[in-house]
Each structure stands twice: as C-alpha cells, then as structure tokens.
C-alpha cells in the first residue's frame, strides 16, 4: 500500500507539473474503465490538478464519490456530516487504500478556494478530496458515475440531486451505490467489504 501511495503521489506531482504531457498520453497499464470515464483535468480543494481517470479512479483501491455544492442547504450538509463520521470510522485507511471524493454540481461557483473553505468548515481530514472543473466535464463525470435521473427535469433540478454515494474499485471493475444517509457503520461496512 505504501508503494501505491508513492506512485499516486508521483502521478499527482506529474499531473501538476506537466498537465499537457499527461493528457496527451494514456498510461500503458490502463484499467477496465479507461475508455469509460472521462480523463478530464480537474482542480482539487488543496490546489492541485488531477486527471479524473488516471489520478482519481484508476487502480486497486476503493474510491467513494458523492455529489455536492458548497451553498447547498438541502441534503448536502447532513450527507457531508455523515460521510465525515464514515471517514472517522475508517480511520487511517482513508488516504491509504480508501479515497473519498466529493464532486461539485456547481463548478461555476465552487472554486478550489470555496471547496477548501467548505472542507475546513466540516473538518474534513486527509484522504477526502473535493473536485471542481469545467461544467461540461463535471456533468459528464456525474452521469458516468450513475448520478443521474432519466427524467431531464428531475435531472436538472438541483433540489433533487443525488443523495447516493458511489463505491468502487476500478481494478476489479466492481461498483456499488448506497444512500449517503445510511448509518456510518453500515456505509463503512459496505466500503470495506467491496
């Protein structure tokens, strides 16, 4: 696991230094969902740039996604608070072999700074990264993760945005989804058993 972390860190550093170079080439060891997820360039709440597939999804690790936006007064605050309890339950595995990602639904408002302030407000710990990017990219990623409704009106209604979390391990191409408001114990149970 330590090796994996170093590799990931190296990849992140590379992405930050040479984004153009990274985007031009696909890694030789593409996983089962390489052609499925967009490899869009995104910004993190701590000021880094990452590629969605290469740096966020890819590899033998458990990734947990949810959708949010910083001024959401509906389901985001309880969801974020609940996921924080899940993060606490999972302890130091978060950041080691389990990674949390929150993707903003309103990238035009949610700059990396806004996301950083949000993460700070909730006391989010390392291993949980907030992501923003171009609206089109964020939307495409959202849909690929299965956070959508068949009804376009419902889909575009922010008050009806998904309350689910997506749990996956790309190396095994294994994906599940659960409501974020289940008990932290239950969410942690499912995450470690994926």
């Amino acid at each position, binding site marked *: 696991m330590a090796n994996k972390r170093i590799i990931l860190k190296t990849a992140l550093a590379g992405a930050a230094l040479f984004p153009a170079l990274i985007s031009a080439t696909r890694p030789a060891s593409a996983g089962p969902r390489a052609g499925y997820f967009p490899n869009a360039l995104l910004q993190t709440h701590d000021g880094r740039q990452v590629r969605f597939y290469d740096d966020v999804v890819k590899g033998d690790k458990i990734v947990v996604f949810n959708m949010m936006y910083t001024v959401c007064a509906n389901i985001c605050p309880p969801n974020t608070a609940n996921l924080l309890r899940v993060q606490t339950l999972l302890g130091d595995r978060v950041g080691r072999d389990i990674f949390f990602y929150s993707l903003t639904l309103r990238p035009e408002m949610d700059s990396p700074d806004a996301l950083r302030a949000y993460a700070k407000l909730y006391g989010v710990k390392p291993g949980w990264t907030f992501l923003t990017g171009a609206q089109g990219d964020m939307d495409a990623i959202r849909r690929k993760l299965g956070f959508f409704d068949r009804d376009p009106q419902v889909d575009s209604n922010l008050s009806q*945005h998904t309350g689910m979390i997506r749990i996956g391990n790309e190396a*095994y*191409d294994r994906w*599940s989804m659960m409501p974020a408001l289940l008990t932290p*114990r*239950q969410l942690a149970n499912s995450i470690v*058993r994926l």
Partner: protein
Amino acid sequence: MTDLLSNDTPKLNRRRLLKLGITSGVATTAYGLFPHQASDAVADTALVTPYLQPFLDPLPIPLIKAPAILAPPPDKFPVVGEAGRDPHQRFEEFRPQVFYEINVRAARHRFHMQLPEEQIWGYDGLLPGPTFVGRVNTSALVRFRNQLPLDHVGFGSPEIATHLHSGHVGPASDGFASDYFSPRKAGPTLRYPGAFYDYHYPNFPHAGDMREITNTLWYHDHRDEFTAANVYKGLAGFYLLFDPLDTGNEATGLRLPSGVGRYDIPMLLQDKKFDAGGNLFFDQFDTEGFLGNHFLINGKVQPYFRVEGRKYRFRFLNGSMARYFEMYLTDERDLNQDFAFIASDGNLLGRPLTLKKILLGMGERADIIVDFSRYAPGTVLYLVNRIAQDDPRKPREDRLYPGIRMLRIEVGERTPDNSVIPALLRPQGPRANLVGARRRTWKFERNNGQWSINGKFFDPERVDAAVKQGVSEIWELEAGGGWAHPIHIHLEDFWVLSINGKPAPPEWAGRKDTISLLPGWRAEVLVRFRDFTGKYMMHCHQHAHEDHAMMIRFDVVP
C-alpha cells in the same frame, strides 16, 4: 389501471415492435458488424442489438439435483469451514433427511448458438441452476459452497447469500441480504467468512396446514448491493415440492401432468442485453436498472421445444431484473390460445382458470397446463410476451402484435396421457380474522435519486417492523408515481385483500409471495408469520431497486 390484468383486446402496436426489432426475424443490424466497445451506461440506447436467428437452440431442461453425503456433516450450529451464521431454528424438530451440495462457480455458457461463449456464474456452474425436487414434510439441507473467483473483474461480486424464494425457513436459512459470505468476506450480519453455508429447508407448510403448501419455488442470489449483477450472471434455479395432492405422478392425487423435465417443465423467463459484438452487457452505473434486448428461456435466446400431443405443465418464473412479462400462447397467425392457469407464485388455486394471458412481474411464478392433444401433429405454437416495455421504470399499457415469440413449440404425435386438468385443485384458506388487525403502510418511493420505503433505506441492523408471531396484520403497499415495484415478502405467503380498492383479480385470489404494483397502485395484503422468529425482509424485486436499498428488515418476535 387494472387493465393489465383484464382480458380485454389490446391495441395493435407495430411501432413498438419494430423498435424492439427482434420479433419478426427481421434483422436491425447484422451480427458482428460492429467491434466490441467499452460499455456506456448513459447512452444505452446507442447499444446496437445483434441479430440472432430465433428458434435454433432446443429449450434447455435444467438437470435435477441429486442428493449427496456431506462432509463434514451439517449441524444446528456452523460446522468447520462454514460461515458464521446463527444456529438453525427447529433443527431437532425438522432434522434433515436429505442432503445436497451445490458448488457455486464460474463456468462457460452460450446464450445462443450464434453468440460467443460467456463466463457465467452458476449453481453447479449451470444456468438455470439444477432443479431441486423435494417432498413436503421431508426436511432437506443444502450446502452452498462458494467457489466463485475472488479476484473476479467485472460485474458481480463473489460473495453469495442464497434466498429460497417462497421458502418457509428459519432466519439463518433465508438468504437475508447481508448474510453473504465467501472464504474471505462475511456480510455485516454474519460473524465470520467460510467456504460454504448450510441452509436448512424443513419443507413443511405454514403451521402444518396442507392448504398452505407451495409447490413452485426458486432459489437465487440475494447479496446486498449486488443481487442484480449476481442473478444476471446466472445465479437462479428452481426448487419444486410435491405433496399428496400435487404428487408428481399422473396416476395419483390431482393427476397433474408430471415428470419434471419431461411433461413438467420449469421455464426461467429473462431478458439480457448483448452488445453489437454479441457480448453480454451489464450496466453497473444505472440505479434504475436496464432492459435486455434479447429474450431467453432457461438461459437460451428464443429456443424451440418439441412436445408430444398431450398435456404439459409449464412453470413460468420471471427471473429478470426490470422486465415485466405478459405471457400468451399463440398459433402461427398470432391468435391467442386458451390455457389452464393452476398456480400463482407456486400456490395451487382452488380451481383452474382458463386464461389467454398471464402477467408476471419480477419474482412471480405462474404454473399453467396446456393440452397439446387439441392441436394436429405438426402444428407450431409460440409462447409470446406481448407487454410493451422500453424503459426499466415500468411496462407500457399497450400490447405488441405480433408479440415477442420467446419459445417455438412444435407439436408432435398424440401420446397416451393419464393426466387431467382437475375441476378442483387445492382447498383454500382459511383466511385469518381481519377484525382489529394492525395496519402498517409501506410507501415505495424515489427521492434524490434514491429508492426508499417510508422514506428510509435498508439497514440490515435496523428493525423496521417487529411483528408479533402468529398475529395477522394488514400491510398497505403503495407504489409512488413513475415506477413499477414488484413487492416480495419473505417467510410466509400473503393474501391479497384489495388492489386499488377493488378485490384481487381471480389470478391473484390465492396465496402469493410477490405482488406486482404498477405506478400509483395501492394494495392491501394480509400477512401472518407463524413458525419462526427472527430477521426477515420485504423488498422491491426490481433488482436494481433492491440493490439500492429499497428493502426493509422485519423481525418476527414471540
């Protein structure tokens, strides 16, 4: 709304049929023209359906499961190598007399002779799994050994929890969704992993009442969060019980057409999606599930079946994820033929009904008898699905003419037939006294992309209803607008008291374990749980819904 259940003449709809593009034998696309590409969850309509010539493969007849000697011998408590389950209830009282072992493993399977071989997961490597043939009041024990590949890549998760659907079993043998196991993992309600898990199936009717026997059951995977994928990968089979009325012998009892696999044919109805390259497709990213683009019986796309000119019993089971079926028997001119409907969800009715169609939501069963001696040798008939459905949310209200021919039946010479369609089947009832019965309301809804029951999501460690053992309750089941929800209650069958304020149609007048609600429908059912205590569940049998937490836990308490 209830016209789904009426025998009115439906409207023609050729447009729908053309959209489906597979029924008449006209190719929408040449098979193999398009290279295999990574699957795309959202643009699923972009997936091109490979053309497959219908009626090339014979109807597969599932093998009958043979008993075995188990080592180590099973016990009330988990034995060495077994997953950490709770002890079996009433084990001493219903000590197993017959033992089976099923190896749950990956295998190769061809869904149609023009399709490439696929990896499936099967009970004993088979799709459908082998058919259990048991006797009422002969207690059985089945050891399910999990040999699925732990490092499997792709849809499906290699932990299993086997549910005997309509099984009247103790809680440790129910296949409760979080009681899943593999040699490496144990679900949150099990104590430790194991190589196998012993399920105790006592096979006695509710409260010992011979009117409450269920004859057609099925077993399938119920792994929390992954039921859709694991069942789609092949984990489904039949479990049949015989008794002094439904004897399995044409010379005794009701003298129903008998001989499992010969004149008594289990038929697992499913749809599956194949991409342009003919590869089996599964969408892991759609919380509403998806529909198949080909129709299968017993694991083959549109097979054929040669019958003798005599009576047959067909046992239909809707084993699909999101597809409703409405099954008809037709001739070559697409004219509907009569058949005798004898059992709903495996429960014989009081008397047979003469029908031309039967609606089946996911998990539902229908036993019918067809007398092929009425047709001249050489006659060709079809089992046809006429329900129009182009969206996993719900079926449409219109019907397909011609429908989707799922099985071609070739009638042969008349042969001796001692079986009958009896005027009376199984005595019904008694229904419990409703006066003062407690009512509970269950609302099945979608909000914020989530499937809920009464606004809550399934938690295997939270009891949503503590139901007093042996006490009748009326459960009101309400499907919110927009989605169809086939609701399944574990442990004991129920009586349908009303549908949308009206009495249940005759097809649903007997005991059932699954009720297929269409959007906006409301049903009242009478439940009573008599013989075991502990944790069970009620859930939507649309697998994508149940995987996304549309389930409750109820506990039967003394």
